[in-house]
């Protein structure tokens, strides 16, 4: 009877703990606030593990406290305690109980390991995405639509996104905390000669919205700045987006700016079907939420790394190294007019797909 009371008293504690945990953090960034079935399943396993572990911690803390208080040596106490060698019954108890707890945790773990490793890369209903990580940006290729983008992964809600991830240089790790756990990107871009070491994963976003993505493996000086975004939109918007990506893009009308852009930018970057696709595609750079993944585009700048798209582009092109240490983007010699013109043109390079 008494024991049941203790349990009843602990129940609200656990419930409160869970509530606290599940309310924790930003919905677009926290693992404790999952926004899709994959992150949800992982969160479920985390909750199970945390509950078991809280019980263990409470038991150990309780015994520790009791022992510390009850058996402390009082002044002048010189008696020799009974020298106990051990106790088989107790020792069996604290061997068997942990084993049982591990079975409770182990079975769903193994279940999830296999469940979450399901391969959707051949599923026609899933959106295929090839992720290639670079120092310090993310390249996304949609083989079903033949679309290359960078830094922002646009996906339809309610569909499985099948990711095949590799790295173009060093190890990186692809992580969208609120949608799914991470997967490393291993080097080995040459699929043709058989050295590819591609990793597969899938995820899904239930609700439309923007989710923050992070690089989770040390990859050089700007590892901290290697953020990306996942933009989940409804299916109609996604279809409009894939169509808009294919639409022709006009180069700047001012011939001087156009020449400078072609000469200085399009030697590495692509806009629509023009230029070279070695570094991030600029086709929709004006509608992205960030410049370089880290300068946040907003009209109401609050923090050091925020500004309008135009300001951010200017800041970035003017001195890329100052924004992202170790970036491969060089500082290009541009006149003030060229810089202004290019930044302005790029900031207006938008594609409209959300209605």
């Amino acid at each position, binding site marked *: 009877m008494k024991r049941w009371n203790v349990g009843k008293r602990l129940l609200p504690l656990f419930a409160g703990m869970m509530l606290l945990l599940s309310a924790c953090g*930003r919905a677009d960034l926290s*693992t*404790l606030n999952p926004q899709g079935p994959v992150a949800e399943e992982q969160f479920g396993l985390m909750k199970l593990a945390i509950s078991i572990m809280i019980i263990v911690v409470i038991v150990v803390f309780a015994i520790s406290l009791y022992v510390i208080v009850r058996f402390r*040596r009082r002044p002048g106490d010189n008696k020799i305690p009974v020298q106990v060698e*051990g106790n088989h019954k107790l020792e069996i108890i604290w061997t068997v109980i942990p084993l049982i707890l591990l079975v409770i945790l182990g079975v769903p773990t193994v279940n999830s390991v296999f469940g979450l490793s399901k391969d959707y890369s051949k599923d026609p209903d899933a959106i295929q995405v090839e992720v290639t990580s670079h120092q310090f940006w993310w390249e996304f290729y949609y083989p079903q639509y033949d679309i290359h983008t960078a830094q922002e992964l646009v996906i339809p809600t309610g569909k499985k996104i099948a990711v095949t991830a590799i790295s173009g240089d060093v190890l990186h*790790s692809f992580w969208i905390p609120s949608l799914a756990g991470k997967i*490393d990107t291993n080097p080995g871009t040459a699929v043709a000669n058989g050295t590819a070491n591609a990793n597969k994963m899938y995820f899904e976003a239930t609700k439309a919205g923007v989710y923050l993505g992070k*690089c989770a493996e*040390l990859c050089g*000086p700007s590892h901290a700045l290697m953020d990306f975004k996942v933009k989940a939109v409804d299916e109609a918007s996604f279809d409009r987006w894939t169509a808009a990506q294919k639409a022709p893009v006009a180069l700047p009308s001012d011939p001087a700016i156009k020449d400078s852009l072609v000469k200085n930018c399009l030697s590495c970057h692509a806009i629509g079907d023009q230029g070279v696709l070695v570094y991030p595609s600029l086709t929709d750079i004006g509608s992205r939420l960030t410049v370089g993944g880290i300068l946040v585009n907003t009209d109401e700048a609050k923090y050091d790394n925020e500004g309008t798209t135009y300001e951010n582009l200017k800041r970035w092109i003017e001195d890329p190294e100052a924004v992202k240490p170790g970036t491969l983007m060089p500082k290009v010699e541009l006149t003030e007019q060229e810089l202004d013109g290019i930044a302005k043109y790029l900031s207006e390079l938008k594609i409209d797909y959300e209605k």
Partner: protein
Amino acid sequence: MAHAHAHTVKRYKGLMDWLTTVDHKKIGILYLIAGGLFFLVGGLEAIMIRIQLWKPLNNFVSADTFNELITMHGTTMIFLAAMPMLFALMNAVIPLQIGARDVAFPFLNALGFWTFFFGGVLLNVSWFTGGAPDAGWTSYVPLAGSTYSSEYGVDYYVIGLQIAGIGTLIGGINFLVTIINMRAPGMTFMRMPMFTWAIFITSALILFAFPALTVGLVALMFDRLFDANFFNVANGGNAVLWEHIFWIFGHPEVYILILPAFGIISEVISTFSRKRLFGYSSMVFATVLIGFLGFMVWAHHMFTTGLGPVANALFSIATMLIAVPTGIKIFNWLFTMWGGSIKFTSANLFAVGFIPTFVMGGVTGVMLAAAPADFQYHDSYFVVAHFHYVIVGGLILGIFAGLHYWWPKMFGRMLNETLGKLTFWTFFIGFHMTFLIQHFLGLLGMPRRIYTYLDGLGFNEMNLISTIGAFLMGLGTIFFITNIIVTAVSGKKAAGDAWEDGRTLEWTIPSPAPEYNFAQTPLVRGYDAYWKEKMDGHKEMTPAEPLGSIHMPSPSILPLFMSIGLFIAGFGFMYHNYFVGGGGLALTFLCMLIRSLKDDHGFHIEPDELHDKGVKA
């Protein structure tokens, strides 16, 4: 024969004594000084990391410097601070605990210290020669390869750790042989003190784990210096291979660090509870089992590498299994205290504080073992919090407990209790303040090893709290250093049985122990040998041999020069100056030649000298 060599060997004084010593007690002190200095360096690096992270978009250090700081903090703390401080305690205590006069190979013992020391110095020289290693303490390729780390930093890592690793391997072998061969008569394996058992298993782990690291480092060195292609993907190498090699070493390394702490805690808790260690044989069994399982779980560091579901499931379950023997140990400690008479000295405060702290690190370990959930924890601050709970909350609290406990035996003076308690409380509170909150930072989406974070992500307050905690830990360390100085100047002289409740052989001899440890090798009549004699009403151990002349090893300067040779060779190869490289190796080989050709039988201490020395000490 015995008398032929007496007094013919030159004995040194002052600095030369320390440079040539082969005495395990002095080598222990050398390890403590060097490890302590590196601990301060690593701690300073930690403080700088925390200053950089105390607010968003801080620019206290640059991105490059930050990566150097995290790399050197990890490398220094593991290889140059934690392990040497463990070796300090091993050296200071193990021969005494098993009733031996020295380790099995005193010369090798000195060599092990000096190679560690010069390896560590080499690694830290990198700060002044254009940049420390910056690819993380794990040095994952390709980032650590010559294409992406073209500076010399990572060269310092591969060569410095190889030289330091020689020292560790030598030490491990030495203690294996010592514990197997040099136990006093009557000390069977199942009568060995728990700390000795822990070091025995640890040494076995070192023997099997360190060669894996050496192989990896040699391969990486060949990649970097001579354009080999072990890990170069473009030429058919494999980057994941490095991860495997590193963690095949790296996971046992975790147990190499924590098992000695388990041993220390067992000794301290049992002594200050005035009770026999509860479930001694299951403790031994659990230690062996942890050591064994420690080799089968390395891939849990690689769940996100893409090993596939079968490997992930197997390594998940194997990892969870380690919780069982660890749990056995935790409950055995608790039940050692149960019914005891617990005295809260500073040493025991650290030991008792260790138990719940380590449990918290252990349970997050089991959480991390669930692979699908690990996809979320991996490389986030959750992991940072977890391994600091295990290494700082486990190992460092254990080392503090051990140092406060054996300080009288090492130096002959009692550490100041008030300062000791102050050290404990500031360090303990600072520790939990720094790292408890980091679990949540990780769960809220903060990756590890980032040099800055944006404002408005909800990370600000927690990072600030964590930084304040780090400063408290620094304060605790300062209290400890103050304590060492105060004790050295005016500390109370320690009796042989310094804590009056000593149970093992080290407490049967004067503090500090005389050069020859035991005038007469003791006869061991049971577990907790000294306690058993005390309970039987004896004041001291029964000797197992008559008083006689004692054979001692001669001091030698050769270990120092062998290590200097390797140090020079390391520089030579790093900067492709093969003349210097060859010269350094030649010095090392020359010393080895001298060592092999010169007949050195050591010297003897005669019984009439013994008595005086014993009393003086």
